[in-house]
């Protein structure tokens, strides 16, 4: 647990960068420091591992004040990743990841094992990458190595200063999702600095929104969106906060799991009767083991005789995973033109369907409930 008590930072030129900041970050939580540039988020983060000395106040980690620990010792137990990554170009990927283990005096085999394990974790093949040099990697790969290096000696706490800030938007989204998966496995206490509200909502268990060195609101992403404390927060999250809220919902929370399907083997006319009875103009088609295969619309099954569903259906592979974030599913629906999106679990087995109506309903609900997620 990280605890800040009335933390103040005044720079030599008299500028008050951080002004009486007090809050706690719980064990295993990902806390995002969010705010416009110059709000003091990076300064606050760097005071935790004492890269910037504190002017007054107290920062304690698991009850021990950080100034009571030798600075280098303290930092070796706190992972550190920055936007510029700062990989050591004269060292291999493996040596980079082993930096802190070396400082801590781990044995050679132990270090190597750890480096391989971490490369696996960030989904880079150890045998291929461990002996490469940073200059041989792409930007995204370097960023992954940067994260792996921060996790080198398995520190309980990670400080990340805009770690995905320098990556192109497509790769950034992917890295974010991957990092969230990693975090689910490793459950570290993480301070994540960003100025990107989307990133904050997606990544954070909690968001500390800062302005002019002060903590404005410290809350869950949902509360920040739907219960902004003041006009600044409201302005910062933006008028499209309902849209941003899509990121907080998962497909499985919104989809309907009671729905009608058509089987590939059955007669087209039978399917048509069912559609008319249910009053729908589209049905997902599954095979005998429940795998999604495509869809039929009412026009497909009108005026056909002695044909099976398989003969008239339009095969399709456009589906969404049950764990996807709602905004990804919605944009898939918009770009593919589907009014009903089939939702699948592993092995492409159909688990539900997602409709525009359901999304609208869910958003309405979220706004009305005020984000008590």
């Amino acid at each position, binding site marked *: 647990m990280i605890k800040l008590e009335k933390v103040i930072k005044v720079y030599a030129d008299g500028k008050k960068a951080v002004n009486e900041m007090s809050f706690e970050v719980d064990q295993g939580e990902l806390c995002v420091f969010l705010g416009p540039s110059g709000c003091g988020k990076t300064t606050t983060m760097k005071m935790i591992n004492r890269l910037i000395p504190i002017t007054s106040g107290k920062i304690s980690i698991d009850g021990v004040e950080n100034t009571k620990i030798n600075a*280098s*010792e303290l930092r070796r137990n706190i992972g*550190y990743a920055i936007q510029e990554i700062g990989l*050591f170009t004269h060292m291999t990927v493996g040596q980079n990841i082993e930096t802190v283990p070396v400082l801590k005096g781990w044995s050679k085999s132990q270090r190597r094992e750890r480096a391989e394990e971490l490369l696996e974790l960030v989904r880079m093949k150890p045998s291929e990458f461990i002996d490469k040099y940073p*200059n041989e*990697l*792409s930007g995204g790969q370097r960023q992954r190595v940067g994260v792996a290096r921060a996790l080198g000696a398995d520190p309980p706490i990670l400080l990340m200063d805009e770690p995905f800030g320098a990556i192109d938007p497509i790769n950034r989204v992917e890295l974010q999702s991957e990092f969230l998966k990693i975090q689910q496995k490793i459950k570290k206490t993480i301070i994540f600095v960003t100025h990107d509200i989307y990133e904050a909502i997606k990544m954070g268990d909690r968001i500390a929104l800062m302005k002019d060195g002060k903590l404005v609101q410290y809350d869950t992403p949902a509360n920040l969106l739907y219960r902004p404390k003041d006009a600044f927060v409201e302005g910062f999250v933006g008028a499209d906060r309902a849209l941003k809220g899509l990121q907080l919902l998962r497909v499985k929370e919104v989809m309907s799991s009671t729905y009608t399907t058509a089987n590939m083997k059955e007669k087209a006319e039978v399917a048509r009767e069912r559609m008319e009875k249910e009053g729908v103009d589209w049905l997902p088609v599954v095979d005998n083991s429940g795998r999604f295969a495509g869809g039929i619309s009412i026009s497909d099954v009108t005026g056909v005789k002695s044909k099976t569903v398989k003969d008239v259906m339009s095969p399709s592979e456009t589906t969404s995973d049950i764990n996807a974030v709602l905004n990804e599913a919605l944009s898939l629906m918009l770009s593919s033109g589907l009014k009903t999106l089939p939702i699948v679990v592993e092995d492409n087995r159909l688990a539900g369907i997602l409709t525009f109506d359901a999304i609208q309903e869910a958003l309405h609900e979220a706004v009305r409930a005020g984000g008590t997620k």
Partner: protein
Amino acid sequence: MKRWIVLVILLIVLVGLTVWTTSVGDIGIFHAFTYADIITHTRDHLIMVFWAVLIAVLIGVPLGTLVTRPGFSRVSPLVLGGANVGQSIPSLAIIAIMATLPFSLFFFDFGFNRETAIVALIIYGLLPIIRNSYASMSNINPALIESARGMGMTRWQIIRKIELPLAIPVIMTGIRVSTVVTVGTAELAVLVGGKGLGTITFTGVFAREVLLIIQGAAPTAFLAISLGVILESIEKWITPRGLKIKAINS
């Protein structure tokens, strides 16, 4: 490849000139120096260069590094300027001035001796070393230093594990340039009581015998070129492999 051919031809020519002038025997009313003389003077020459460069490295690298530290930013123009002045004074003047200094420094007296010559060579050879150390140490990507610090490296560990390995190729270039310059300047040592190949060259100068001048100058040029080549290979060998790879995209 072409460069190597030129180098080898040049070295062969220089050896040829040395052999020719030595085998002439009598030059006017003078005797040419013997092979034994040339070897002795070459050895003395190398010893002077060795000490001068070694001490210049021992002073120049730490000094060039020190002035890149935050607390010393005010001193850095002074040090770099000083080294610049040291090099802009004509080498002959430096050596002559040194010899006439009427006082002692630590353990030795200025005057007409080899030590004076070496001190002059050090002053003259410092600039490339200080300048390259300073440039390479101050050009290191600050993100690397920050992440090293953030991961818990001490100041000394950062210098040893990060900054020096990254700076070493450029520092080595400075040492190479300094060495080559010093080999040439060391010719003048004989004027203030030093030894070395200058003994042969200046005998020729004073006797107005071109062959004798060549007999001293050719081995000196040979030394300068071959030392330059040797140090360049060391430079390549010492450069960390990761730095030789060009980034695919930065």
